[in-house]
Each structure stands twice: as C-alpha cells, then as structure tokens.
C-alpha cells in the first residue's frame, strides 16, 4: 500500500498483514452490515481480534472484520523507520484508502491501538458509525505520573533491552492475562516477534508514549483526546480493571469524554480483556441493539453535508432502561426535613447518637440539621463538588453521615456508599470500580484509602493534625467545610434543585453471588423508596426510630422521623446489645426499631443485661423491622417477648429494590399453618416473604429443566417456580458500569430480574426458594435449595443447612451440607445415622440427596452473616466427594 506518512519518503509502498473476512463473506453471498476496523496495541497483533473475526463471519449477523497488523508489528513489514502516533494514524488512513473501505465503519481498539483507532475515527467522520474501546487511554492527567510499569519500560537503562533486545516486554504483557493464556495462544502472540530484529516496533511503540508535554507525540495525543467529545457516534467501552497500565482512572477519563458510552467493567479481567472474557458476544449484541428494532449501529444515515448522523442510540430506545414507571410527582428526599425545620417543632431533636455509657453523645434539632446540611453543601461546593461528582462516603451511620449524605443529595452529587460488610477486598474493588471524585471518611477509612490506593480527593470528618493530614493526603475536613460554608442565620442557601432523574447514589450488592455490583439510584427513585416505606410501614413525621440497620436508617430524616443511632459497631451487626438498643430507644421514646437479624440475635443473647427502664423502653416500641436476610420464626418469637407491643415485620428485598414484599410475624405463622395444612396451592417450599409492598409489582419467569429462566413472560400462578421479577418506582436505575449485567437484568421489559427464585401461593404471597445461580439440576428434577434446607434445619442437632449440586448440570448429585449442634470438629461425611435423617427430611421436601456432609460452620457473607456462599460450598463438596481430603469449605 502506498504511504503518505511523514516517516516515509514520498512514493514509499508498505506491505501490510491483516485479517479480513470481506472476500469470504461475499463468496458466501453474505452482505455485511458494516466493517469493524480493529487495531491492536503493543505488543500484540491482529490475532487479538480473532473472536470478532469469527463472530462477524456468522451468517446471522455478518460484519466485515478488518484487523490490521500495524507497520513494524505482527506480520506486517519492518519499515526501518520510527513511526510516531501521527504517522500511525495516517498509516491506518492510507490502508483504508487502499482498501477503499467505505462506511459504516466501527473502530475497535486496544491499548495504544485504541488511540490510533480514535485518531482514524476523528479523521473519517463520513464512514464512522461507532467506536469500541478496550483498555486504552487518550490522556495523561497533568500532574500525575504515567504508570510505574511504563516508567520502567521507558527508562533509558531498560528500554532497549526490555522491549527489543529481549522479549521481556512481550512476556510481561502476556502474563497480564487473567486467567493465564493457554500455551498455544501465548505462542501465537509471540510468533511474529521472534528475534530482536522483529521487535524494533515494540521498542519504538513504547518510546512513542508521550510521558509529558515536551514529547513529539503529545500534540497528536491531545488532538485525539480533545476531539472525543465531538465524536457523536455510539461508543462501547469494555474494560478489564486488573490492569497495571490502563487502570480505572483512564476509564474514568474516557467516560468523561464519552459520557453516552456504554461501559462494562469485567471484574477480575485484566489488560488483555479480549483474551480474558468473551468480548465478541457483547460487541455484536451492541451492534444489533438487543431486543430492539434490530437497527444496527451502522444503520445511521449519512447527511448531504457528509457528517454522520448519529444512528439510534444503542440499545435502541425500545428497551426501557428502567423497571417500572417512576411517578411524575416528585417530592425531593430532603423536603420533609426542611418542612420540619421551618415548622413549629424545628427545635425538637431530629437526629441523635448514643454513647456507650447510655447517654446521648450528640444530637441536632431539625433546624440545626437543616443548617448543617446547608453549610456542608455550601462548603462542598466551594471545595469543588459539583452536580454529578461522585463522593464516596466512608462514615459510620450517625449524625455526620446524615449531614453529609443529605448535603450531597442537595448538591446533586452522587453518593457512593460502600460498607465494610463487603470485606476489605470487596470494599476496595467496589470503591475502585465506582471511581469517586471525592472520598469523605473517618480516620480508619482514610488510612485504608492510602494503603489500598483508593481514588478520590480526600476529606476527613474531623479536623486532623497537620502531620496526619499530610500523611493521609487529606485536603480538608467536613468540620472545616461546614465552618466555611455556614451562612448567616435566616439566609437560605443558594442551591439549585438537582434533576430528579440524575444519578444520586451508588449502593453495592453484598456480593454473595460474585463480586459486589454497584447499583445506581436517581433522586426520584430514592424518593420513591422513601414513599414506599412510608406507605407500606406507616412511618412518617411523629415516628421515632432506632436505626440499627444502615440502609433504612438513612431514610429517617427523609421520612420526617426522629432517628437515633445506638452505640454499636455498625459494620458488625452482632455488636448490638440489648442494653444499647434499650438506651437508644429510651433516649427518644422510640416507636420503631430497625435491626438486622444478626443484631437481633445478639440482642436476645444479651437480654439479661437489661434493667427495668430499658425493658420498659422496649415495651413501648410499636414496630420492629428486620431485613437483609431471612429471619427465622423462632427468633422473631423470642424478639416478640422482648417487644411485646411491637408488630414485627421482615421485609424482603435486595440492593436493587428495597423493599419488594413485607410480612409480619402473624402472617408468617399463618403462612406456616397453610403450608402445614397442605391444602393451599403453592403454600410451602421456601421462605414466605408476604405480599408486594405499596406500588410494587412482583411476578416470576418459570424455570426450565436446565435450571435457567429463559422465558420472557411473567406469571403469578400459584405454585409455579421461577425467577422473581419486580417492577416498582423504587427499583434501581441501572447497574454501574456493568452494561451487560444491566441488559440482562432488564431482559424482560418493565421489570428487574432479581436472580432469586420463588413462587406464589393462591393467597398471592411470595415464597422465596433461593438464588437462581444456586438451583440444582438433578436428573429427575430442578431442586431449589431453600425448601429442603428448611426441612433439614428442623431436625434436632442440625444448625444451618445448605443444599448444593455437584457434577454436570442436568445430572447433578444433590448434596446437603449441614452444621451440627454441637459443631463438628472437622468437615467430612456425616455419620450414617445423621445422613439417613437428613436424607429422609429432604426427601419429604422433594429432594433426593446423594451425600450429606458436615462442616464446623458454614461460609457466610460478612454483611449479613447469614447468606451461605453456596458456590464455594459446591466447589468444596465436589472436591471432597471426588475423593480428596476434606479441608475447610
């Protein structure tokens, strides 16, 4: 191909190697919808894109795929020149001119190939229909150094040897694959780079990385970066976060430049994301517009002026991004709070915190709360927090969290609430994934942020000594911001009301079925959550609640309810004592208690520490809410004795929809009686979680024989087991940077697919049977775990039970893993007598158990201490039953 690049003499012709299925498609009579122009980075070659080539060659969705080997790379010509970024962008244009490549073209890039593909994209608006990017970067934030690994590769002492003389750079890059590359794949990536003479391009590529503004390629890179916002075509970003080079901060930079891009972060994948995960599936799904009218990305029309008219957004607008219809009337979350502050009771206590000695350590009136929120909001704004800024809050529940949370909401900032219940690793992953701009935290959180490298400008809660501030890289404190932002009494803060449909919060799932997922709520959806809680549970102004459980506790001020935080380590629910609960209740004459099941267990265990006044305070409680995990009836019965006048409720829900259904102790007993009587269709086999809450719709998609829920038609017939779907104004807006997960979750239009399985009874009550991912597919039946587990747990001498499958799907052996009372000393097969009892109990519940294993304790999640990690148990049981040594699960 003739070259017009500055690196070459005029008239130079280069030989390119490329993969192109165009001729093959036309031979087979297939007309492609467009062309994918795939550009590899350093030090790979077009082989990286083989899955796209295969997918594009399928007759169902033919796309021409042109995957190039850049000059001096792969099997293309070794030119003997040093080609800079501008040359390489121009080279690609020379190639597409020579190929007479016409639109629509979607560029696909990886690593520095991403920049080159974007350079081509900006230079060819007429042909361009979309861009796909995998781990790449277009901009080095000023003032921040390039990644250490690249600094090393660029170091004069290392560069030539590391990249060219030896194959170290190749080997290191290949070693970034997660999981490791198969030997034949590794060999294929090496194939074109045997010998230093073939590796000049690898070294030159590294040397062409513009580490700072003085670099010859800096201007070209800058042109690409600054051109991106004008691209105006759909974009898809597929990212492997475990990348020492193109880390999440570059993803954040790209998202800022391409705000409409669809983003999926493959948690656990790394730099070679195209090797680590299936990217062809997502790319081709994106190209069609899943479930929409099938208009391909390339279907955009080209206007007379030659500029590409953006094709329909991908996914097509036919797919609602929301489950359920948010109401049009919208009362901001903080409005009840503001009303109370302005009203006659403005000087009454609004929020309070308890000290360990039973006294109130801190409290604010409605008026003070409102003023504090305004002051902190003002201060945050002055510190640079904007509408849409992400602010990670690492502050335990209490007055400070309430103030800063509502301040952020008022500003239109997006609060990121990741809790220690995810475990250190899970928490770290979650924070990095959400990429906050600011991190507001207590000392411990800031120290963790330093050690673990969490992103975001740091703000402490309290003023810190200067040395500590420097150590933790803390810019300011909430206290300082409040001082700076406080307004003269009587002046209203000048704050624009944020868009009700803008993101307001990112919460995290507990990660019991894989890494924790970020869940995005808008202001409107948070307000709908508050309204659902208010109507379903009757909590509003006048209510006084003890907030022993974080998610609902934060709603207190929004509900107009007085809230008090008991003295406990909120990250460890088991630390709530009966005494602390009673002290908190007494302090505000509480009517409502929120507590997790684990906290309730400890309250019962410590009930002897209660004095008479404490007992009396608890006797005045009217409503107890416990959520987060199933609450067994015997536990509730014990709690009832402690709170004799309270109505006990256990709402069911998940991070993506809080709450979905509600049930009281009386209703639980009625449901149990119906199940025992055996004459009501659908009663039994699971945990009864009651009726849908106010404004929520619930249905199921029936399970198929392979244990999946492939259909799309929600049903509510009694006794039909399926994946549970919920539609409500308070369902999540979307998953955060998990485009594929989000699409899967809204596969049934208008609904959120919960990943739980269950069924209805003829009274319309929902019975939860477990997680879809935990369904066991035995040869004769699909077994949902919960029903059999409950039957097993009713046996004497048995604690928590879990039913898992081992072996291939469709012919799995059903295995019951049980805790015994007293606990077994070590894990292994159950004694024959116990095995026989467990097997018989499960048989009565409809499950044929092959093996019974005992464990000293079940592996449970940290947040709820109740959700058994069945995936892990299944892996463990598989190893034990294969004849290995029984370690701990």
């Amino acid at each position, binding site marked *: 191909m003739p070259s017009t690049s500055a690196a070459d003499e005029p008239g130079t012709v280069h030989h390119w190697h490329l993969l192109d299925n165009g001729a093959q498609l036309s031979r087979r009579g297939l007309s492609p919808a467009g062309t994918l122009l795939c550009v590899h980075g350093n030090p790979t070659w077009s082989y990286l894109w083989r899955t796209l080539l295969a997918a594009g060659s399928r007759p169902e969705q033919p796309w021409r795929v042109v995957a190039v080997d850049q000059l001096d790379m792969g099997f293309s010509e070794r030119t003997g020149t040093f080609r800079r970024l501008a040359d390489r962008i121009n080279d690609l244009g020379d190639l597409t001119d020579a190929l007479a490549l016409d639109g629509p073209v979607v560029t696909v890039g990886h690593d520095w190939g991403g920049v080159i593909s974007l350079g081509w994209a900006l230079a060819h608006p007429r042909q361009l229909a979309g861009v796909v990017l995998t781990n790449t970067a277009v901009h080095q934030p000023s003032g921040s150094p390039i990644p250490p690994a690249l600094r090393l590769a660029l170091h004069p002492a290392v560069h030539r040897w590391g990249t060219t003389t030896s194959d170290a750079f190749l080997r290191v890059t290949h070693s970034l694959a997660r999981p490791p590359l198969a030997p034949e794949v590794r060999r294929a990536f090496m194939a074109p780079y045997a010998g230093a003479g073939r590796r000049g391009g690898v070294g030159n590529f590294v040397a062409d990385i513009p580490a700072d503004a003085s670099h010859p390629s800096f201007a070209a890179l800058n042109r690409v970066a600054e051109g991106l916002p004008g691209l105006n075509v759909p974009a898809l970003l597929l990212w492997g976060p475990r990348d020492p080079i193109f880390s999440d901060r570059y993803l954040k930079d790209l998202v800022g430049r391409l705000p409409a891009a669809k983003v999926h972060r493959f948690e656990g994948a790394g730099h070679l994301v195209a090797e680590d995960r299936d990217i062809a599936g997502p790319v081709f799904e994106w190209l069609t517009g899943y479930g929409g009218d099938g208009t391909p990305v390339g279907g955009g029309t080209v206007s007379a002026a030659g500029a590409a008219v953006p094709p329909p957004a991908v996914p097509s607008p036919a797919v609602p991004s929301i489950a359920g219809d948010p109401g049009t009337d919208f009362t901001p979350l903080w409005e009840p709070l503001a009303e109370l502050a302005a009203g006659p009771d403005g000087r009454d206590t609004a929020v309070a915190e308890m000290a360990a000695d039973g006294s109130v350590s801190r409290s604010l009136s409605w008026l003070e709360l409102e003023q504090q929120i305004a002051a902190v909001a003002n201060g945050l704004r002055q510190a640079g927090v904007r509408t849409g800024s992400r602010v990670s809050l690492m502050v335990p529940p209490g007055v400070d969290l309430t103030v800063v949370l509502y301040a952020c909401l008022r500003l239109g900032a997006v609060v990121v609430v990741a809790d220690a219940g995810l475990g250190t690793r899970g928490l770290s992953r979650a924070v990095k994934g959400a990429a906050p701009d600011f991190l507001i935290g207590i000392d411990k959180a800031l120290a963790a942020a330093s050690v673990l490298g969490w992103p975001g400008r740091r703000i402490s809660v309290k003023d810190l000594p200067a040395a500590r501030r420097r150590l933790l890289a803390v810019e300011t404190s909430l206290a300082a911001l409040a001082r700076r932002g406080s307004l003269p009494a009587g002046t209203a803060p000048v704050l624009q009301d944020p868009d009700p449909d803008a993101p307001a919060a990112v919460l995290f799932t507990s990660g019991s079925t894989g890494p924790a997922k970020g869940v995005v709520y808008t202001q409107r959806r948070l307000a709908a959550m508050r309204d659902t809680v208010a109507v379903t549970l009757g909590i509003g102004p006048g209510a006084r609640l003890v907030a022993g459980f974080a998610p609902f506790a934060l709603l207190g001020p929004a509900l107009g309810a007085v809230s008090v935080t008991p003295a406990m380590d909120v990250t460890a629910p088991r630390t709530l004592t009966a005494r602390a609960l009673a002290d908190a209740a007494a302090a505000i004459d509480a009517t409502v208690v929120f507590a997790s099941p684990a906290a309730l267990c400890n309250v019962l265990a410590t009930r002897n520490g209660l004095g008479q006044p404490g007992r009396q305070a608890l006797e005045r409680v009217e409503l107890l809410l416990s959520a987060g995990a199933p609450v067994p009836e015997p536990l509730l019965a014990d709690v009832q004795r402690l709170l004799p006048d309270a109505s006990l409720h256990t709402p069911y829900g998940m991070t993506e929809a809080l709450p979905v259904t509600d049930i009281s102790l009386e209703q639980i007993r009625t449901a149990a009686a119906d199940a025992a009587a055996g004459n009501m269709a659908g009663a039994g086999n699971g945990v009864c979680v009651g009726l849908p809450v106010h404004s929520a719709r619930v249905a199921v998609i029936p399970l198929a024989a392979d244990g999946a829920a492939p259909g799309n038609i929600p049903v509510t017939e009694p006794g039909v087991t399926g994946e549970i779907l919920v539609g409500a104004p308070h369902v999540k807006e979307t998953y955060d940077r998990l485009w594929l997960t989000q699409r899967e979750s809204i596969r049934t239009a208008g609904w959120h697919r919960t990943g739980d399985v269950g069924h209805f009874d003829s009274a319309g009550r929902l019975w939860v049977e477990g997680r879809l991912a935990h369904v066991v597919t035995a*040869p004769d039946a699909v077994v949902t775990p919960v029903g059999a587990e409950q039957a097993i747990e009713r046996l004497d001498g048995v604690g928590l039970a879990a039913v898992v499958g*081992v*072996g*291939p799907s*469709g*012919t*799995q*052996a059903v295995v019951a893993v049980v805790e015994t009372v007293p606990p077994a000393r070590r894990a*292994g*097969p159950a004694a*024959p007598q116990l*095995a026989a009892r467990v097997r018989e109990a499960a048989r009565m519940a409809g499950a*044929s158990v*092959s*093996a019974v*294993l005992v464990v000293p304790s079940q592996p449970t999640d940290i947040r709820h201490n109740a959700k058994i990690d069945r995936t892990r148990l299944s892996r463990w049981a*598989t190893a*034990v*039953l*294969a*004849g*290995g*040594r*029984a370690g701990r699960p």
Partner: protein
Amino acid sequence: MRVLVTGASGLLGGGVARLLVRQGQAVTTFQRRPAGVDGATDLTGSITDDAAVRRAVAGAEGIIHLAAKVSFTGKATEFDAVNVDGTRRLLRAARAAGVQDVVFVSSPSVANSGAAIAGVGAEPADPDRAHGDYSRTKARAELLALAADSPDFRVAAVRPHIVWGPGDTQLVERVLDRARRRRLPLLDDGAALIDTTYVDNAASAIVAALHRMEHIHGRALVVSNGEPRPVGELLAGICAAGGVPAPSWSVPGSLARAAGSLIEVLWTRAGRAGEPPMTRFLAEQLSTAHWFDQRETRRLLDWAPAVSIDEGLARLAGHYRAR
C-alpha cells in the same frame, strides 16, 4: 425368544437367566459349573472350548454374555484367554450360527484410568489405560464385541457398576469378612461418591438391553442405581445389614493406593493363593468418585431401577437374618 446366557452360575448371570425364564423366554445357560436356574436348559463347559461354545450357541436368537474371569489377581494370560479370546470365540460361533443379538456385559472400569468420575456417561473402552488385568481384558473384549456389530448381527455392551445384593461374594462378603476382622478401613473418611447397582436392577437392565437392541446396538451403556452415595455410608449400610460393626478408622486414599500397588506385587510374587487384602484397583474403587449420568441409559433402555439402595439394603439384611 431363545436366549443363551453365559456365566449364569454367578450372582448376576443367575439373576438374568431367572428373569428371562420368568418372562417366558427359552433360556439356555452355559458355564463351567451347573447354574441351577429352574426352567433353563443347563449346559456346562468352558468358554475356552471351541466345540462347547459351538454347541451352546446352536439355535439361540439372542446371547447375553457374562462369562468372564473376575478377580483382582491372577495370571495375565488367564484373563486374556477367558475374557478376550473367549469373547472372540463366542462372537465368531454366534455369527456362524445365525444369532441376531448379543449383549456383552462389561464394566465401567474399562474406561477408567483411575481419575474421579462425576456424572459422565459411557466413555470409550481404553485397554491401554484401564487398571489391572480384569479391566484391561474386558476393555479389549468390549472393543472387539462392538466392532462386530452390524445391522444383522447386533451387539451392545452394558456396563453395570458395582453389582451387589444377597449372595454376592465379590463385594458384600468381602466387606463383611474384613469388617468382622477389623481390617476394613475407610479411605479419606469414605467421602468418595460412588454409584452401585442392586443386582435385580442390573439384571433387569441387561434383559431390557436385549429387548431394545434396535436402539442401542453398537453402543456401550453404563447402568447403575442412579443413587450415588459416599462409599463410607455404603459400607456402613452393608455392615449393618450383615450385623457387623461398621468401619471406623480412616487412612489417606493416596497411602492405600500406593500400598495396594505394593501388596499386589508382593502377593503375586510370593505365589499366595486367594485375594490379597488390598489392591490398587480396590483402593481406587474405594477412594475416588465413580458416578454416572444415567439419563441416556434410562431413555434408551426404557428402563428404571425398581429397587432403591435403601430397599436393597433392607433385602440384604433380611437375607442375613434368615441365614
């Protein structure tokens, strides 16, 4: 239908012959000792004897071939002579005599290289990787039997996995005998999940195979109860049925497998008669998972086991109480 059953003096062969008689078939039995199956014509003779085999197959329409040398030890040449050459001889005679259908009764060990098996179907027989002379020769025999299959001489292989029941000397009597002498350890706590087949179920599956040749000829099918159990629990069940205390001590499976190999060698070298206390084959059987996908077997045979493991153990207990 005139059916020849070879090896009918054994537990399974006798069960098959009796079931065929009950079904009203004309049954001939052929083995070295009298089979004692009421209602069947009994021929005694060896599968290694050409003339005897020709006599046995004369007039048969279908053959169920169970005769084999089943043992953990012995000379390799004996296994070859009975299991491989005997099968070849029988097939040749059967084809010459115009027999239509042959069910070759095989064993899942023909495809077992010692690794754990969890929920798979019948893998191809592999004499080179099968452990021990029995498995090796059965694998070879199965391959040559299936290779003989054609539309007018239909051959299928049925592989029942660990057959047991009242009167079983291969597994039940051994287990009880050793448990009685406190010489039965559990390997790795007896956790390995294994499939077994109650003898009546194995017999009914084999007979079903003869009736379903149009669907299964040319193939091998594994047959089991489809109720895998941890091996320790099975052994305990057998011991309870026999009125013997269950094994209560455990040794690492890896140790037993190694010891088994060693004992096999020493036992054979020392020229000891009978079965050694531990063999590598036995150690593998008792310490690694062996359970199978039974869906296709059941569909193709249009068959399901009639006797559950628990029911089988109850019958076994009845058998020992009556003794």
